């Protein structure tokens, strides 16, 4: 690759990192507004989350519990940006040819582990319990998610997200995975797993304020909390994008010279719909206890996912 090519690539990646952050924060703000409407309220302005992050990052005092605590900040933002850039976004491949879905799955663990380290380093039992719950929650939702992922992988005979997106975008909407009956089941299971990934009700017990005073974040403030909010914003985009890439063809509907604009808009609309669906579910359910959530995922969701996997397997070996 020549110098110019590298420069363009770097610029593109930077642009998408910025877009991902802004879109995440914007969505969170709009989400707050929509939830407020559900609550019969006016709600904050849609740009409220930008203000919140800016305020947190400009706090004068920032209290740390030592260098391991700081790892949380460093790993969370970098890890989630890394994950975002390994996903195809709206048909733009970014770095997704250099890795695959397994890599993305493991990259998502870097910020989580970073935050877990920071939370653990604060020494607060609330944080310890919160991280424990978050990890158990991760174990819970990963099983249905992994099974659906494997169903997709053996169907398309690839593990690369870019290839999955490409194969789903051959005929536009008609070739999206979700149009096939087995993948409808899989998409349902994966959407529930997404609810757990986004830590919304009924799966928000890791950060339940009434029980463990917001769990892992209990000692985070100032720039540390600000970085957590940025992480949440980018994670929101990354996780919904992962779902869109897997089931909704990455939002790719058009091919051609300026198709990327249309694809970008479709991608944005799709992840927005997913996010709205998630927060509306959150607004109408209480939270599960952690072992109930585990049972939910490993009993019901995993069975749904397994049915879709077996279905796909039969289709494939035929």
């Amino acid at each position: 690759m020549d110098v110019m090519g590298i420069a363009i690539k770097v610029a593109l990646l930077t642009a998408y990192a910025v877009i991902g952050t802004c879109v995440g924060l914007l969505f969170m703000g709009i989400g707050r507004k929509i939830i407020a409407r559900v609550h019969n309220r006016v709600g904050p302005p849609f740009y409220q989350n930008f203000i919140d992050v800016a305020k947190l990052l400009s706090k004068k005092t920032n209290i740390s519990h030592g260098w391991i605590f700081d790892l949380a900040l460093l790993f969370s933002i970098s890890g989630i940006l890394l994950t975002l850039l390994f996903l195809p976004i709206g048909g733009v491949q970014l770095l997704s040819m250099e890795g695959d879905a397994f890599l993305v799955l493991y990259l998502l663990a870097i910020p989580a582990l970073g935050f877990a380290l920071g939370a653990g380093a604060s020494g607060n039992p609330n944080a310890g319990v919160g991280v424990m719950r978050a990890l158990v929650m991760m174990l819970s939702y990963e099983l249905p998610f992994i099974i659906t992922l494997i169903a997709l992988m053996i169907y398309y005979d690839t593990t690369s997200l870019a290839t999955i997106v490409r194969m789903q975008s051959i005929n536009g909407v008609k070739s999206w995975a979700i149009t096939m009956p087995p993948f409808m089941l899989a998409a349902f299971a994966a959407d529930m797993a997404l609810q757990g990934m986004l830590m919304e009700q009924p799966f928000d017990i890791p950060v339940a304020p009434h029980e463990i005073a917001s769990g892992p974040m209990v000692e985070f403030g100032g720039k540390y909390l600000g970085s957590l909010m940025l992480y949440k914003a980018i994670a929101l985009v990354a996780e919904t994008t992962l779902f869109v890439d897997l089931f909704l063809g990455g939002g790719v509907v058009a091919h051609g010279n300026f198709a990327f604009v249309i694809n970008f808009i479709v991608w944005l609309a799709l992840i927005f719909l997913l996010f709205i669906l998630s927060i509306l579910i959150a607004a109408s359910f209480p939270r599960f206890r952690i072992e109930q959530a585990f049972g939910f995922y490993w009993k019901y969701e995993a069975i749904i996912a397994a049915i879709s996997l077996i279905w796909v397997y039969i289709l494939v070996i035929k």
Partner: protein
Amino acid sequence: MLDIIFAELIIAAIITFFVGKKIASIIAGFISILPLFALIDWANNFGFKTISFGIERQMNISVAGITLHLGITPLSWFFALMILPLFPLIMLYSYSFFKENDGFYPFMLFAFASTFGILLSKDMLSLFLFWEIMSWSSFLLVYRSRDKEAIISYLIFSVFSAFAILFGLMILWHENFSLLLSDIGRINGIYGFIAIASLIIGFSVKSVLMPLHAWAPFVYSKSDEPFVAFLSGGLSKLGYYGMFLFLFTLNGVKILQNYTPNVAWNYLLAVVGSLSAFVATMLAIMQDDLRKLLAYSSIGQLGYIAIGFGIGTPLAITGALFQAFNHAFFKAVLFLAAGAVAYRTGKWKISELGGLAYRMPLTFLAALFAIFALAAIPITSGFAAKWLLYEAAIQQKYVFIAPLMLIAGVGAFLYSFRILYGVFLGENRYPDVKEAPKSMIAAMFILMLPLIIFVVFPGYMLDLMKPALSNSGIESIAHTKFAIETSLAKYNSMAVLITLIAAMVPAFIIYKARKHRITSFEDNYLAGEPYEFHNPSMHAAHNFYKPLKGVVLPYFEPGATYYFEKIYKGIGILSNGIRRIYTGFVQDYAIYVVIFLLAVMGWLIWM
């Protein structure tokens, strides 16, 4: 010169019986470096340019009319590369670990010599002979724990393993009347099938494959840490060395398939491996004893290697060997770090430790990095190995194995964090603890080096195993220095690392933009309560995964330990019977076993 190395090892072993701890460890350390020179020398034979010391490749020893054929093969060279470097570092570590010389060094050197011997064996007799010496010397090292459960379980399983191997070897020998390993490819039919199956079962005891793992939690949790690091990092690989040798290099897979063409025996191995990985991971999550946790973690991680061998495609075998290499190092580091923690605090229970990260930062760093490798975080080489295995499973559409492997991978996060939080983070319970001694730190950090090198250059790893694979007729997979490419996808470690470093920049800007101050542990959120009013204990490490325990454990624990308890009880009744006639001491059983084995060997030779 090879004979000199062997002789020196034996002599050193005898000398260390009589000298003090310091001298013994220095002798043992330097002597155990010698075989590494041989490894470097032999690398020239496999397409690498290194220094030559003029060490011969082959050596035949004739004893009482029997010739032992020794020599290096590409496969044994690769396995030696992952097992032998552990020794000098373990010796370095044990320099400060032991208070006095009480029999660790001689047995360890014997174990080392016999490990070296096993890897060099080219005929069945020497393989079995060295295998027995290895089992015997490691048994004596286990015996040092003075723990009845550990000793008896190790004894039972070692004897079982030895008999299974002996049985397999005898059938092979009976079938083609040649002791040379290279001759066994000729046999077929039921005998070949039984021989290979029995050998695999025999080796899978050492490689702690479920359900033959039951000894490991006892032995790992009671023996000396340096030895356990070798046991988990090194000896378990010998089992897989044997498996690889008989399955792939000596065409065991074909022998199995010729006899029963319709049954995929290798799939069975993969299923056993994946169940082993999954169940052991779930059990590891529940452990409170640090060593037991690591023991179950070893069982789980070694299960991946069995999966790779079971799937049997080039991709899978490459992944398995990569995983074996990684595991040797990161598990050794973890056991050594656990030993360092126990050396300073005297505690093994995770719930009794806590807050050591700021007291023992270097130990923490070593453990953290090893844990990253264990959990296959993409900034360590652990990821590449697991990635290859996942790809292999998807490539073959093994829809039962793949989810189990992946969920076991997620489970690894859970117990990794258990170690990190329970031991190193959280409430600082040991304010007066000092950093581990320098020799321990040095050993751990040197062991970390390969993990760092092979994350940046995973391609080098594939180059290293290329001779071993091509010698067994397995093609090597496409790769460059940084990237591995399969038919399904591509993994570029450099892209990940560079992007991570680049993504660190905004994080670092945010980090540096505002100053922070470090506060004390006491200044913590206690719902508004002042700390000094209650001086609360704040380490939430006991029963950490209790919610999971209630849901998961009922399904796993009985299956995992129930049958072993049956065996244990049966042996207890049996030994009670024997006790009436004999002395009833464990040493005696050991001696009987050794005498019996020698008698069998004598019979073999006589035949």
